[in-house]
């Protein structure tokens, strides 16, 4: 029963990504990305990574997708489908990505990875992640807070209304 659940989540993820790749309308692409991110959150839940699952929901589905939708609505003529989501090079890129996919899967199947989940299965991960972030990984944690501050300032600086652009 539990393996049927995996195939369902994987199907949602892959179908969403296919929608992003092949939909002609960019708004549909954005909603396909939302389905794909929800599927990835489901995969994290399947691997009992509870904290990551909630982070994925809050940051991706609640934040980044909304940001993408805002950008889509603000830019361009979204009703004109041929203009809003044009593709180029479709002919050669399908064999190209098929080759990439085949190479990755063939290379991975050559390596003998452990195929059973380890025993921390089903135990909550929040405490371990918190201890690791404030212990072993304290330096990257502080650096990434600096990065977030820089991104905050940089986004405001780039997107503000420049005086010479006002027409």
């Amino acid at each position: 029963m539990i393996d049927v659940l995996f195939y369902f989540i994987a199907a949602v993820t892959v179908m969403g990504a296919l929608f992003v790749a092949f939909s002609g309308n960019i708004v549909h692409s954005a909603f396909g990305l939302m389905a794909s991110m929800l599927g990835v959150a489901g995969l994290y839940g399947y691997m009992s990574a509870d904290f990551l699952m909630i982070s994925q929901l809050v940051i991706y589905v609640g934040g980044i997708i909304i940001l993408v939708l805002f950008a889509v609505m603000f830019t361009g003529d979204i009703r004109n489908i041929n203009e809003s989501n044009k593709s180029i090079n479709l002919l050669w890129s399908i064999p190209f990505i098929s080759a990439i996919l085949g190479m990755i899967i063939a290379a991975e199947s050559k390596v003998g990875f452990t195929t059973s989940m380890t025993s921390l299965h089903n135990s909550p991960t929040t405490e371990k992640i918190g201890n690791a972030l404030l212990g072993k990984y304290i330096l990257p944690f502080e650096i990434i807070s600096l990065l977030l501050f820089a991104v905050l300032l940089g986004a405001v600086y780039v997107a503000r209304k420049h005086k010479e652009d006002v027409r």
Partner: protein
Amino acid sequence: MGVITIYHFLTVAAILFALGIFVVSTRRNVIAILMGIELILNAANINFVAFSRYGTGKIDGEIFAIFVIILAAAEAVVGMSIVLMLFRRYSHIDATNLDELKQ
């Protein structure tokens, strides 16, 4: 059906990665290219968590995935602000026509 092994997760991640590369290499809309980058980063994240879960059982892979999520959020914010600025200046966001550096 049978039991779910690490190869199932790796296959899903590989499909997401290939579709992300496809989106990045074929789309002309800059926002769609950013969506492809998000797909690629999520494929990498699935691999991190799968190796963390099926490997030694340590938490390090999940920490790395958290950092990747934070970087993806930062990249999306900066990318979208650049897209808005491009649209304000050129009135379009077609990547094939943004070639001023080539001239």
